[in-house]
């Protein structure tokens, strides 16, 4: 069944501090979970919820994004009636890049205006979760909310950079602050906002007319008194992945089979770009434990507590421990990796050793040879 809900994955000024991992790509396409990109989680959730119209508001460094999303066919969004819309920023001069997201919402308003769908969910790409937006919309309608914000009770949070929200006894949001604020609360915002399309367009026009151009900061947060802004509590797994510690922490959490099952299958499967790699080959003498291994790998050495993306080679007597090796990485004979994150196509030559710390992984740039 199709939901009367259209999606926006808003990549404009996403909060992030990913250092080298986003030097040549946007946060949305940071590789995660052995074969995915961050954006796959929210995009698959939307599709599995019954949404068939999703726009991605791209902003900067979006070559990898266009390459990854293609026609949308991997998410079943290559449809005649609606489907996937990747909308690059509409700018007149360089200074427009500095303007807030509402400015781009305004420039892309035809996307909203042309659709008969009544509701919009505005989301970000870096919330790693598997969520049913139909339930969010149900609650939104049942409670008569103006805006519903997907939130999570997350006392241990603190790793990724998240907005915090304070709720009253009825679950209405009474205060909300950016990640650097002093608001004390165990509830974090998952940056998914459900509202009527008409209200969104009103907020865009009104805010811009008032000289304000940030959706959450200027259109939502100052109106917590005037609009009924309610929280929808997400019960499933959440990883807020927008800095290195959170990337490393939430990646390694996938090595818990319960998390693996929940994140990748419940309530629906997570889709990504198909690569047609063969099954992974384990050779005689290999030893792999407590690890997540994608297809197309060729393993002769030892791998412990690690995540290998597609097409990684681990040669004889090499050891990979508590590390993340992205696509097509090569670990030479007698090489040693411990607490490392290797970006795509990094080659560790024979006998080389790389060691990071468990709270500060070593990061190798894309295509680096060590």
């Amino acid at each position, binding site marked *: 069944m199709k939901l009367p809900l259209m999606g926006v994955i808003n990549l404009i000024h996403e909060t992030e501090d990913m250092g080298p991992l986003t030097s040549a790509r946007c946060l949305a396409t940071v590789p995660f*979970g*052995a*074969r995915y990109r961050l954006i796959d989680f929210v995009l698959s959730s939307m599709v599995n919820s019954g949404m068939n119209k999703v726009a991605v508001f791209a902003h900067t460094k979006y070559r990898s994004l266009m390459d990854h999303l293609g026609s949308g*066919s*991997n998410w079943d969004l290559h449809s005649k009636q609606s489907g996937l819309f990747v909308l690059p920023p509409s700018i007149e001069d360089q200074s427009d890049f500095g303007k807030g997201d509402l400015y781009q919402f305004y420039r892309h308003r035809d996307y909203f205006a042309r659709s008969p769908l009544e509701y919009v969910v505005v989301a970000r790409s870096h919330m790693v979760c598997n969520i049913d937006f139909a339930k969010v919309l149900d609650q939104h309608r049942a409670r008569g909310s103006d805006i519903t914000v997907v939130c999570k009770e997350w006392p241990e949070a603190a790793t990724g950079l998240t907005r915090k929200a304070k709720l009253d006894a009825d679950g209405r949001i009474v205060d909300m602050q950016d990640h650097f604020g002093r608001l004390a609360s165990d509830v974090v915002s998952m940056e998914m906002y459900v509202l009527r399309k008409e209200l969104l367009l009103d907020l865009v026009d009104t805010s811009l007319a008032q000289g304000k151009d940030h959706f959450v900061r200027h259109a939502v947060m100052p109106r917590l008194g005037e609009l009924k802004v309610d929280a929808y509590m997400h019960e499933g797994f959440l990883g807020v992945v927008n800095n290195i510690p959170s990337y490393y922490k939430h990646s390694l959490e996938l*090595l818990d*089979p319960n998390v*693996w099952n929940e994140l*990748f299958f419940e309530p629906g*499967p*997570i*889709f*990504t770009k*198909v690569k*047609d790699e*063969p*099954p*992974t*080959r*384990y*050779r*005689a*003498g*290999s*030893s*792999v*434990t*407590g*690890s*997540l*291994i*994608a*297809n*197309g790998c*060729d393993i002769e050495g030892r791998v412990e507590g690690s*995540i*290998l993306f597609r097409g990684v080679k681990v040669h004889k007597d090499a050891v990979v421990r508590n590390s993340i090796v992205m696509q097509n990485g090569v670990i030479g004979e007698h090489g040693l990796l411990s607490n490392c994150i290797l970006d795509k196509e990094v080659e560790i030559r024979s006998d080389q050793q790389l060691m990071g710390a468990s709270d500060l992984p070593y990061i190798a740039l894309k295509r680096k040879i060590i």
Partner: protein
Amino acid sequence: MHKSECIAMLLAGGEGRRLGVLTKDLAKPAVHFGGKYRIIDFTLSNCVNSGIDTVGVLTQYQPLVLNRYLGIGSPWGLDRRGGGMHVLPPYVRSKGGTWYKGTANAIYQNMGFIEGYDPEYVLIISGDHIYKMDYDELLESHKRNRADATIAVITVPWAEASRFGILSVDEDDRVVEFAEKPKQPNSNLASMGVYIFSWKVLKEALIRDEATQGSSNDFGKDIIPTLLEDGARLFTHRFDGYWKDVGTIDSLWEANMDLLEDEPALNLNDRSWRIYSVNPNMPAHYLSPTSSVQSSLINEGCVVEGTVNRSVLFQCVTVGEGSFIEDSVIMPNAKIGKNARIVRAIVGDGAFVGDGCVIGSADAAEIAVVGSGDRIEAEAKLEEAKS
């Protein structure tokens, strides 16, 4: 009208009777192979990699699984405007219709489809074989020889020659004799069941064959011998790569085991000749702290907590703690409980093997088989192949 120089007709109606419980609901081309693929993926990928963009797939026996798998050909890049992949089951005409009586009759019944593309050449292949072959080289040799038909051949051991269609050739590789499964072979060049015909010649031969009383309407038994008798220009094209007919439980098991060699003759990792398949889109597989995996192929979506040695695990297989799997093939979605022991066996897709079961053994004469969807309850023993 879309004109193609060469189109492919892929015979995919094989029943695969000798694969027993593995083909009870599906045609042989749809049988799983190599941890991720179905047999037909190899020929379809060969077509695409050889630059052939128009493929007619002739289905007959148990087509449901196969039809659903093929869809509109997108996984192989065959959802094309103009050409692309077309599934061609037997159909009813105003004067009635018939089942495909033989391989040649299947093509005869689809002459209208072929004419629609007005091809110079037609490639005839079957969805029963595992191999990687550049059909463009076959076509080039066909053109170079100004042949009427070119047959791909492979050298087989003399001892096995009597199981194949055997061709004797002169010094120019022109066919001088063809014998179907000869008791006393004069050559060890075996037909791979891969033919290129000049369409005009084939069309005429098909019409004549259809009018011939008592013909079995088969390429190997009727079309080729008749063309040879008539003095047509028949040539062979030698192929020296890996080629296997996986028509029996033993050969299916062996072909899977062949992939576990250090340098397998069939290289699945060659990025210039990828084998495409319908992607299950499952997460990366998980090997638990209690797992041990060696000399094996494992596909996405698997969860392994036990020991896997010299085996092939398809997508979404789970292996419980304490279980031991050796020299075996475990097909998609099979669930293996705890402390089970599976040796020299094929476990069909969706099968369930309960805790403590023993399937097959290292010294058994036959490969043990658990049929697709079968349930083997806890502590059961299955050491002989099911009939």
